[in-house]
């Protein structure tokens, strides 16, 4: 008896794009779009007259929060609602599904960035454009890494739990690394937790990169490595995990 291989080995671009488009449509046609607009508009009111670094920092913060609101629950909802299961019956692979979800979420994140960009760019002289582009690159890396984590969590948690977990993570990382909490732990567990928290792409890292770009200071190596590698690392882990879970597993729970 010969084995049938999975329908295709390489992800099909048309499938990935179609799934990404569905994710964007979901946001546009549900209340999530309004939430995103409010989040994208907030920095316009909050950072009036601030320095370029402060404006970029606010831009990053609101973009991450906005993308979490838009995508965290929705990605897991696809699995919970059975939409993912139906995709599988149409020959879609786990990698195509997750890549579509990632691209759709990233596109939404970039829309939020674009909506806030005018305030970040206000009064920026032309020779600062390369600086700005570099800052945007680091912001895109942060968003991509964040999407990767969201996708991984979505394969393990249901929709609402995933959204709550991502918001919790947003708070837990700076608290865990910056409050001295870990110093109260025994050294080995503290080192493990610190390493895990440091592997998460976070606002502190992108702020450090903004500072390095704007003030031409040396780039922190940890932030550079995590921001550059985390999108691929987290996406791969999410894809592996999604490949292993049953398409209708959550429907039967």
């Amino acid at each position, binding site marked *: 008896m010969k*084995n049938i291989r*999975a329908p295709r080995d390489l992800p099909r671009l048309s499938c990935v794009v179609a799934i990404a488009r*569905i994710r964007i449509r979901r946001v546009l046609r549900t209340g999530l779009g309004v939430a995103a607009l409010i989040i994208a508009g907030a920095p316009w009111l909050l950072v009036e007259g601030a320095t370029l670094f402060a404006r970029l920092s606010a831009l990053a913060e609101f973009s991450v929060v906005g993308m979490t609101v838009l995508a965290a629950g929705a990605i897991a909802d696809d699995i919970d609602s059975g*939409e993912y299961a*139906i995709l599988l019956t*149409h020959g879609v692979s786990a990698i195509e599904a997750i890549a579509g979800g990632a691209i759709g979420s990233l596109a939404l994140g970039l829309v939020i960035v674009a909506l806030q960009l005018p305030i970040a760019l206000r009064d920026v002289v032309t020779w600062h454009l390369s600086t700005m582009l570099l800052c945007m690159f680091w912001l895109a890396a942060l968003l991509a890494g964040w999407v990767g984590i969201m996708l991984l969590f979505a394969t393990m948690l249901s929709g609402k739990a995933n959204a709550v977990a991502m918001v919790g993570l947003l708070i837990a990382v700076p608290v865990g690394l910056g409050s001295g909490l870990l110093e109260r732990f025994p050294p080995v567990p503290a080192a493990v937790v610190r390493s895990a928290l440091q592997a998460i792409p976070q606002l502190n890292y992108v702020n450090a990169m903004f500072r390095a770009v704007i003030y031409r200071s040396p780039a922190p190596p940890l932030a550079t490595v995590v921001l550059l590698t985390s999108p691929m690392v987290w996406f791969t882990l999410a894809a592996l995990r999604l490949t292993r879970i049953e398409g209708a597993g959550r429907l039967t*729970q």
Partner: protein
Amino acid sequence: MSIVLSASRLVKRYRAGVAQWGASIEALRGMDLELAHGELLGLLGPNGAGKSTFLLCAAGLLRPDSGTLSWFGSSRAPFGRPPGVAYVPERSLYPRFLSVREALEFYATLHELSGTERAERVRAALDRVGLAEHSNKRVAHLSRGMVQRLGVAQAVIGRPRLLLMDETLSGLDPVGAREMRELLRGLRDEGVTIILSSHDMLSLEHLASRIVVMKNGQAHAAIDPSGFTGERTLVLTVDAPPLAARRLQTRRPSATLQGDELHIPLGGDSPEDVLAECLAVGVGVRASAIRRDDLEQRFFDLIDRPSRVAEPNV
């Protein structure tokens, strides 16, 4: 005859949840089934018999804990899914914010069709299931019957060889149910092999070439629906059954004694007339019932019979 689907000793367990940590529910307990090309197989069984779980395994959406499944003569790779198999779920698993047409276009896109062919297949699917006039309606606003039609439309858009349908006839009005039966006949005539899980026995009796009754996660019995005569039989519980049988057989030779019951084919007679005859020959009737030789009666006979399988342990 080529085998489209073969299941052997399939076992599937679900974790019982946090409240019963470590416990599991055995939904399939050694399911065996072979399905030949062109068959329209009816799956019948009480709730919890394992029909939906079996269909999800057959669709490649659940992994059995043990046993083997093969499609078109080949077993699948550990994480691969069977090509050429489409699944119609019991409830709506489609993007609720899309219109019917948009949803079908989306599913057609996943099959890498050219723009023209995609449009043609969407149009054909809409016409086929009778949703053309509702094509601009949002999925969220569809009635249950329309959702079932959408389910069939999305399934046929990829031109499957094996169609797995879970309770697809439920929620349809009588006209819709008849149209759906016609649609399934049409698909079967085109060579699509179908498994239809349903509680609608009338439809199964008319549609299926074979009916498998599931009970306790196993294929409990197989029924040939073409063998039903629809004849009615009067079943009597009587005093002194052997004597009563001998007495009645003087008037009605077709009467038989089955256990402690007298079975009397009614033919064109009314039950009242036959009862009067029984009393006239001195048969003491304690209870009476009418049975019809149809799927419903056969199903209840099978389900009421004590199973050799123990009840599930949770």
